[in-house]
């Protein structure tokens, strides 16, 4: 199984500032998908952003963007203009391509983000 590593158990950011969450992964596949999920105290996992490995362009979604380094197997999440509502656990996840026949997600251990007013 693929492994996903999040080396930052906790991070904090001042409101309106920018923060970057790190994620690395291990795979022998050349095509795959990467995701960042947000899990607030309500426990519901919410998709923040996704990246297809075959795309060189980094994905962006409003204040959220990624830095995808395929050769380094790195997939970091940048949150700009941080808001109090961004406080949550953030999980990085990996998924094999459709051709592999499975849609299983492999998650990292998460990073708890605190936003300081």
């Amino acid at each position, binding site marked *: 199984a693929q492994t996903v590593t999040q080396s930052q158990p906790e991070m904090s950011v001042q409101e309106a500032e920018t923060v970057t969450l790190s994620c690395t992964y291990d795979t022998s596949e050349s095509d795959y998908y990467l995701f960042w999920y947000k899990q607030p105290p309500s*426990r*519901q*996992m919410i998709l923040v952003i996704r990246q297809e490995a075959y795309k060189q362009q980094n994905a962006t979604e409003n204040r959220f963007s990624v830095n995808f380094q395929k050769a380094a197997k790195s997939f970091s999440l940048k949150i700009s203009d941080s808001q109090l509502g961004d406080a949550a656990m953030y*999980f990085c*996840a990996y998924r094999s391509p459709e051709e592999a026949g*499975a*849609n299983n*997600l492999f*998650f990292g251990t*998460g990073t708890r983000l605190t936003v300081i007013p």
Partner: protein
Amino acid sequence: EAGVVQSPRYKIIEKKQPVAFWCNPISGHNTLYWYRQNLGQGPELLIRYENEEAVDDSQLPKDRFSAERLKGVDSTLKIQPAELGDSAVYLCASSLDTRTEQYFGPGTRLTVT
């Protein structure tokens, strides 16, 4: 559109007791997943259904865990008997098919005492 519904939200039981969790996926979603999330960890897949067929249950502890998805809609995950180590959040997710985004429910937090 209603999201994935799970019940109960919380459950506290004594060890050796049985427990069941229920999941209603988003309407029209053929693929359903059960994940277990231990404290301080990311979710781990227990079982995946495509319609009513369990196509990946390799991580399901079959001695005490069972699941079913009758008629390919709602699903139930059961533990019998529960052990202290089963304390976790059990998440259900669904997707249109195996290639599309998974939508998660709010989970059931199980505490075994």
